[in-house]
């Protein structure tokens, strides 16, 4: 590969910008240059699954894609719930501790509802696979978040949440070690009101489930914390590069810049920014300001307007980022890639445009 992609590539960006397709295209290119490559993704489109020839068998497993290239290409679909369960099993000191968590009512609701679980499980899985060392390169497609930063903050947030210390301490006065409500006579009037409030407003049943969960989680916490630290340092290492994918148009620029800045500030290595799905400039590049009549919209003038909008947005973005920051424009395709051929055409276009921007990723200080 002409661009120095490291061992781990994390593709980030808002939803609906084509992250998954680009991740697959990168994977294809990587395997084409002889590197054994794994693409990890969340549920991708049927079209892309067809293109890669993987089905539900790839859920939480790695399935090899028949590419005929020198390196192998594998794909894996992430399953957050499975990963979480596996982690619990790994760090639980014994079967009883494990089952206490896995059957806890609060835990069963938790995995689906707590913001960041999906994101955390993605990096967790990345770590697992990278430790196993079976691949020369791993490309991680991240879940669509409205705020792309959620992804990076997830490990810290989950660990903070699981840090049962604060909660256990706070709940100590209300529950004894077996999770039963203590007699609260000694708490005084204010305390009684507080307890009465808790019972009345939130219901002690739920609180008891939560206490049980955090108590059961206690022995696992250290393992989780240690793991989250290692995941963090892996993501910040020389081995990892982030590719930021954005939609076209000036409207998207503040989000893109914000995310790029936060990545760098937090010590991650930002590779290329990809402005995807750009409408092509019209041949007769006439200035089309709001003069375009709204109803009815003719296709050609709409496309001209969109081409102009996207060009303006791209130029503005380039003018606002550091000079050495590669920014790559990729066009809106007539159809989404639906087979290996069209995926490979996209990856060729990507690397050609990337080579043309001729800037290598900077090392964080």
């Amino acid at each position, binding site marked *: 590969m002409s661009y120095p992609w490291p061992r781990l590539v994390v593709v980030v960006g808002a939803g609906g910008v084509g992250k998954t397709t680009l991740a697959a295209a990168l994977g294809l290119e990587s395997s084409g240059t002889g590197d054994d490559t794994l693409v990890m993704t969340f549920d991708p489109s049927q079209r892309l699954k067809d293109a890669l020839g993987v089905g539900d068998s790839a859920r939480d497993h790695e399935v090899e894609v028949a590419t005929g290239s020198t390196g192998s290409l594998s794909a894996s679909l992430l399953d957050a719930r499975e990963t979480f369960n596996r982690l619990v099993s790994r760090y639980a000191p014994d079967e009883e501790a494990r089952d206490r968590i896995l059957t806890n009512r609060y835990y069963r609701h938790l995995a689906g509802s707590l913001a960041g679980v999906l994101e955390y499980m993605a990096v967790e899985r990345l770590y697992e696979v990278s430790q196993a060392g079976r691949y020369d390169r791993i490309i991680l497609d991240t879940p669509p978040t409205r705020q792309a930063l959620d992804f990076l903050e997830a490990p810290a947030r989950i660990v903070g949440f699981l840090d049962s210390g604060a909660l256990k301490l706070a709940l100590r006065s209300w529950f004894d070690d077996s999770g039963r409500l203590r007699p609260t006579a000694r708490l005084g009037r204010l305390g009684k009101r507080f307890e009465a409030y808790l019972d009345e407003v939130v219901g002690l049943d739920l609180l008891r489930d939560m206490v049980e969960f955090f108590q059961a989680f206690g022995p696992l916490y250290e393992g989780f914390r240690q793991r989250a630290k290692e995941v963090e340092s892996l993501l910040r290492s020389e081995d990892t590069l982030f590719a930021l994918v954005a939609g076209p148009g000036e409207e998207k620029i503040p989000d893109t810049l914000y995310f790029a800045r936060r990545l760098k500030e937090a010590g991650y290595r930002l590779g290329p920014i990809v402005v995807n799905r750009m409408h092509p400039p019209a041949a007769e590049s006439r200035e089309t300001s709001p003069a375009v009549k*709204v109803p009815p919209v003719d296709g050609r003038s709409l496309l001209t307007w969109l081409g102009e909008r996207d060009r303006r947005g791209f130029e503005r973005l380039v003018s606002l980022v550091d000079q050495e920051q590669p920014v790559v424009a990729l066009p809106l395709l007539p159809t989404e890639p639906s087979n290996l051929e069209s995926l490979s055409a996209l990856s060729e276009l990507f690397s050609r445009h990337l080579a043309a921007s001729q800037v290598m990723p900077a090392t964080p200080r």
Partner: protein
Amino acid sequence: MSSLAPLDSQELIVVTGKGGVGKSAIAAALGRRFAAAGRRALVLEIDPRENVHQMLGVSPSGGEIVAVAPRLYLQHLEPRSVLDQIVRERVRIELLVRRVLNSPVYHHFTEGAPGLKEMAVLGHSLILVEGRVPGAPEMDVVVLDAPATGHGLALLAAPLLVSEVIRHGPIATMASEVARLVASTKRCGVVVVTQAEEMPVTEALEFVTLLQSRLQRQPELILANGLYPAVDQGVQRRIEDPVTCLWMDRRRLNEYQLERLAADWQGPIGEIPLLPLDRGPALTAALEERLEQL
């Protein structure tokens, strides 16, 4: 009859859809439409990154109810503040209120209790239309700009979930009132915004299935937003005119996905074209006009 007609008598309209499909713009346009028709309407936004104000051409609401135009209001809501308010109403002793609000138990609870924040948002909508928000006028309709689809369902299913784990007290009462509101097709409408592309259509259809199985109801309307315009008969495909080729290809893709949507969903589908306008009041007005024509 307009496919929007059922919405005209409902009190809560939940606008849901995958991220990036133009949900906020549609929510703002619906708010404008209701206000223009003489109803007092409030557009409620819960995404931490405010953007509905941009669509309506006003400054960020900062949590307050802001009057945008005659009969049209906007509020950006932090779900936690609804729960804090319940604590204030319930506890009443300032010292104790602070103790509760600052306690890690409360904090973890509101962050971690399944469905609680989502239920609070719906609860707030309910008291808005019932005129029970102190200092705020009684709203005829609340348009809720919901989070992306997966979460959109979590939002609608939240009252049931909360009822399951919290059995008594004010939160339980609110949850059961809200569950009744959401289940009533007379009072609550669901509008799914999507785009005629593979993933958004797949997600919209998944949402319809889940809504049916979890809440035994259907959305009122699916809006296919951002469609490339239909290609007139006279338009020629010429290789040296890539712009027209792209237009034709994307339109064909749109039509294929619209067919796919219609094959699995028998309810009304509203088609909204891609418009040559940047995000802002002009776009919202143009969308309102398009909605009017459905």
